[in-house]
């Protein structure tokens, strides 16, 4: 039934029909979970529980359980925060910007990418929350709520407050956007459940789909809302990481105080976000046998985005060094020399290797169309991006203006545990999502099949 284009690779292979799409995707939701799913889910739960233990001890005893000190007031906490927020960028980019640019290849990956965004943002948001010395007060004092303290109000000068707004806005819009897309697909599962006579499932998915009726008018509204939300989310892709970068850019600390951060952070975010999408999709594709929907072509396109953003990030690193030299500010110069040659040189060179050198391998078509190579590199990129944030935060702080206060940062089990905790949240949520929600946007994928069938018949 499916036709292939003369000019480009088909986005969905295997000659899928519309019914096949419904069947392939919904099957994952309807069938009992596979053994591999149980194992992965169980492992995520273990991570979550270990992390939760570390979090509880930290909450009970104090932030001192982490390795921070008088000089390095942020380390793994904010590194992980920025890292997760960065990862969260791919979803919106894929669903919003690529939607506006009518990049149809996004259709089979946007669902998972958006889910990843939501979970990553939850993980990210946990760090600014838990890193507070008095979390129990910070939750509401950091929000501009009317209160009984008279004129006491939040400090609108503080980039941390901007973060609160940026992250919460981004999270709300992403969540709505993601859920919107899920509605027709939930309806498909409901309809299939009704047909199969699964009453409970029908009830649940009916509720989840808000009684979607599939009428033309509904579809029309759905399309309009999707477009509006895409328009709303597009500036968010740029603003969120820009604001996160302001945490550093507006400070006075050498290595933080730099105007290049907003574009550099956004590029880095997309870079790491795409890498994470790749890591997850390559696994999902294999586990759920979705090779026909997530094709080599998808992977190649995403790898190209990685080359581009990776190169932007690389240029940013070099520009920072150039400006440090050109600016002739001694403290700034030292901060950068210290990054490359100081006690944290290994973090810096890990970052350079993983982020600047490794993505360049994707210039080879053989590598960027190779699943194994892509998988390995996607993980390397995320390791590199973690180091980038670590380098920016820790190596700038640990040796700033007064040599008397210079110190080192050594993580403790609780730093690691806090990070593991977010992995636990992320993977547990992702596996629940991949089991109970359709991992590919059926409605949209069906439209590609239709679109390709309108093309000239070939062979």
């Amino acid at each position, binding site marked *: 039934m499916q036709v292939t284009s003369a000019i480009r690779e088909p986005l969905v292979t295997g000659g899928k029909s519309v019914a096949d799409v419904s069947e392939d995707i919904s099957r994952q939701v309807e069938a009992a979970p596979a053994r591999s799913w149980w194992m992965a889910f169980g492992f995520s739960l273990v991570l979550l529980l270990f992390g939760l233990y570390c979090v509880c001890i930290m909450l009970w*005893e*104090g*932030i*001192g359980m982490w*390795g*921070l*000190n*008088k*000089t390095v*007031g*942020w380390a793994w906490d904010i590194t992980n925060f920025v890292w997760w927020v960065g990862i969260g960028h791919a979803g919106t980019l894929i669903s919003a910007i690529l939607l506006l640019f009518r990049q149809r290849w996004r259709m089979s990956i946007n669902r998972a990418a958006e889910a990843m965004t939501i979970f990553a943002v939850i993980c990210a948001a946990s760090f*600014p929350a838990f*890193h*507070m*010395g*008095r*979390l129990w*007060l*910070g939750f509401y*004092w*950091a929000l501009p709520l009317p209160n009984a303290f008279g004129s*006491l*109000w*939040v*400090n609108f*000068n*503080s*980039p*941390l*407050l901007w973060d*609160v707004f940026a992250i919460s806005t981004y999270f709300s819009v992403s969540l709505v956007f993601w859920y919107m897309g899920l509605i027709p697909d939930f309806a498909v599962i409901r309809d299939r459940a009704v047909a199969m006579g699964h009453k409970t499932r029908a009830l649940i998915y009916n509720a989840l789909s808000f009684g979607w009726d599939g009428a033309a008018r509904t579809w029309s509204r759905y399309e309009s809302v999707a477009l509006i939300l895409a328009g709303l989310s597009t500036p968010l892709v740029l603003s969120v990481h820009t604001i996160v970068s302001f*945490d550093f850019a*507006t*400070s*006075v*600390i050498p290595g933080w105080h730099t105007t290049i951060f907003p574009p550099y952070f956004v590029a880095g975010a997309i870079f790491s976000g795409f890498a994470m999408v790749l890591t997850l999709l390559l696994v999902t594709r294999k586990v759920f046998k979705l090779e026909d929907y997530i094709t080599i072509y998808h992977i190649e396109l995403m790898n190209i985005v990685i080359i581009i953003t990776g190169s932007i990030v690389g240029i940013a690193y070099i520009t920072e060094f150039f400006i440090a030299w050109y600016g002739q*500010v*001694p*403290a700034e110069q*030292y901060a950068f*020399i*210290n990054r490359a*040659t100081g*006690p944290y040189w290994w973090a810096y060179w890990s970052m350079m290797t993983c982020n600047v050198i490794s993505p360049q391998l994707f210039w080879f078509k053989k590598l960027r169309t190779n699943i194994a190579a892509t998988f390995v590199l996607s993980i390397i990129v995320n390791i590199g991006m973690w180091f980038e944030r670590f380098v920016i935060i820790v190596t700038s*702080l640990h*040796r*700033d*203006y*007064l*040599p*008397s*206060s*210079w*110190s*080192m940062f050594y993580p403790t089990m609780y730093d690691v545990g806090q990070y593991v905790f977010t992995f636990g949240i992320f993977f547990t949520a992702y596996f629940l999502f991949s089991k109970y929600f359709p991992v590919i946007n059926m409605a949209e994928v069906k439209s590609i099949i239709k679109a390709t069938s309108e093309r000239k018949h070939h062979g």
Partner: protein
Amino acid sequence: MSNTTKTYWKGLPQLTNDPNYVKHADKEFVDLGVDQDPGHSRRDFLKMMGFSVAAVSLAACEAPVRKAIPYINKPVDVDPGIPNYYASSYVNGGDYCSIVVKVRDGRPIKVDGNSLSKVTLGGTSAQVEASVLSLYDNYRLRGPKVGTANADWDKVDSEVIAKLGEIAAKGGQIRLVSQTILSPSTQQAIAAFKAKYPTTQHIQYDPVSYYGIWKANEESFGTGMIPSYDFSKANVIVSIGADFLNTWLAPIEFSKQYATTREVSEDKREMSRHYQFESNLSLTGANADYRTAIRPSQEGLVVAALYNLLAGKAGVAGISSTLSGVANLEKAAGELWENRGKSVVVSGSNDKAVQVVVNAINNLLGNYGSTILPGLPVNYRQGNDEAMAAFIAEAEGGKVDGVIFYNCNPVYDHPMGEKLEKAIKAMALSVSTSYTEDETASACAYKAPDHHYLESWNDFEPKKGHYSLSQPAITPIFKSRQAQESFMTWAGVANADYYSFVQNNWKSKFFANDSQGWDFQTWWDQRLYDGVYESGASAGGSVSFRNEALSSADSSIGATYKANASGIELVIAESATVGNGSMANNPLLQELPDPITKAVWDHYVTLSLKDANALGIKNDAEGRTQLVSVSANGKTVKVAALVQPGQAQGTVGITLGYGRTKVGTVAENLGVNAYTLLSMLNGSVNYSATSGVKVEKVNEDFQIAQTQIHQTYMGRTNVIQESTLAEFKKDPAAGRENPMITKWDEKVEAASLSLWKGHEYKSHHWGMAIDLNTCTGCGACVVACNVENNVALVGKQEVINRREMHWLRIDRYYSSDAQPGDYEGLEQASENPEVTFQPMLCQHCNNAPCETVCPVAATTHSSEGLNQMTYNRCIGTRYCANNCPYKVRRFNWFKYHDNQQFYQSNPAMNTDLGRMVLNPEVTVRSRGVMEKCSFCVQRIQTGKLTAKKEKRELNDGEVITACQASCSTGAIVFGDMNNPESRISKLLKIDHYKTVKNAKGEEERVFNYGIDKKIGNPRAYRVLEEIGVKPNIFYLTKIRNKDGKKENA
């Protein structure tokens, strides 16, 4: 409606006239089926639930009952919440300081210097500041003890008297052992005791002995004494191993005198020149203009060589011992000779031969009568090493039957302590009056604890004719008893009340001659009010040097010292923080960074990098090192090794004051007891070992906790700004760095550009000036700040985690030989570095970077220029600390109060007794909040309120920060920069007016309330001027009295 025939049914039931419908037809909503009223309304339910929840939660968090008992009859002058101040005296052995005790609600909470004193001149030291916490030491004896059992005083008295009687009856020997006794009345009480028991001998010794000086003066001049020194009159100061700014003799007094010679300004472009020849890098050596590292085996020869150089200039015969090629010695001799009578040479040696030559030098220079006052001897150290050694030998031989240790601990702090401990146990009677159960008290059968000094009456004569009183600032906390009362009770004196004893002594001794027409009570009250009293003090009196002393000293030096010794030598010095060890259980001192090494809670030997390499010792930046075993004089100790720039090659340094075994939880088993390594030389205790010393690496790792782990200055230019006197004479702005910012067409001063509008301070504008030239780096201010502001002490592990809480720290930088830009080289300190100290505290920036980043506005700017911290509002994001360029903000990583984890290091917040020392005016911070220096805002507030109540303006000098008050040298000046008459305005030469254009376009001079006041003092600078945060703290450039230009990076 009534006309219509249509009927609208509400539903089928209406049509069918269903009975159920008819029943409820008048109700808008059909009843949901709850027919029966259970008797409780929803409101009742909510009330009950609300009450239960509230009751349960209240019951769960019931606060422990704390008793607060109000006065039935309020004592005069005691108002709850209003502190009283009492003049008193701090005395610990021979250490003395005249003080004012702040007492709030019956509890002494702070000790300040007494500015009326002509001895200590209003200064304090770290130990004086910390001593208030020792009052609340949990290790204090709660009452007398017989053996290990608690007893009452009657039992102790009857048994002690019985035993003394027995000993006296059989003619047995009794010894009363004490440290130096400064108190004339105590001497009299002891005399009364001796009168009753004539076989009693009173033996005085000092843990850190100055007997060599005493002996040398006896030999040189015929009178055994230690003279007063007046460094303030010296243009050239040469010290051979005397750490007179921190441990030697009377450092509080000397620091003040020294600072007056080190002050420079546009109008005073002269300062003293200070040479130091020493083995360990001491605080004094760190302040010297020229420092030469020598070995202890050369010490005598260096002094002899200096004598010979001067003798050559004076045209008198030299002595045979000499040493050539000592760096800076000839230069020093030349300048000493030029400044005859205006110079001083001091030596830290306890070898009388060396001190005799030092006397000869000062005699040649004519310094007696000007910088050295033999007519005004000091009583700080009267210990007699020979007598003490003889006593221990006697005790060992079983010839002593009874011994009383009066506030001394020779089992710990005498080289033969171990032997003494055994001997004590064999004696018929052994009594200790120590207020804690220390090593000696533990060995004694009877513990008759004395009061803490803040609970006692006493009088003192620290310097001839200079008297002072101490009075109780609190009723005795425990069942302790003034030791003098014990002595008199045991001597059978009828009225053993020591207060009236002291009073009577003063009445007969002073009041009789100096009543000024007052009645005694008024006169006495005035004496108590002042705390100090002078009678018969005159600096007059001359001495004549006996040349025969010199020749015997010469031969002794020739025999003892060697020009080129091989092998490693050991130098033993008093600790700069815990002193001689008597205050080791005071965590304020344990967590006070050593001024040089910045180590806390630890004991170590210092050694030079070359020696460390030879031994295979490796230190890393985190203080990780290895243990070494040090053997000297037949004893071996195992202790950590710390590489110390400036340490003379071939020497290792170790401090006394550690290795206490019976001391309390704070200091127990910290380090090793270095007293055991001491030996005797020429009749006095020798604080070095020059032969037979073995230092070997032990393969055991150790981590030393240091508050500063990066030692050098890394070639920066805007943090420490320094120059030499030679340059300063030409240009008082020498050494100043004015960072410039490049605009597109010109370079402008960094401070002239700002995105901020600045502030207008219409009333006060608080500021501080810190003179880097008079700051010696001693650290008294650090302890004062801790006590005043309830700063938590966090213990060794948390310091290793780099989380000490000090609001004020002293940054210490070593110079490096590397060139700017060679960052790796710059990390390595010079072999004999120049040292700079910089007190660093919240800079109270006018454009504070911490204020803008706080999401909840917990740190804000006051209308008086303070950067203030609202602990209640803080949620602990630590963003402010990250964004602080000075890294002065401190985060409460844990709950430091009421937390067993910090019981050992922070008793002041974790024990009921310790908590009494807390300053009620300052919140104890909770976990998870940020804190920092507040410029003692509680003191500012008190000052303002007092002025307001008295309906006047606040005068300059009424508000003094704790650090300023503690500073012996006056390096810290705090005040109102809006007040043209304030000291700070004058010191900084602030121009209080600015020219503005008024509405008519005319230029007008108006008062400048803004943040950019013109500072006229060319030495004044703000740290990190280029980042534009505009601190309210100014530093005055460091000027070293060196020839030529600044050399090192």
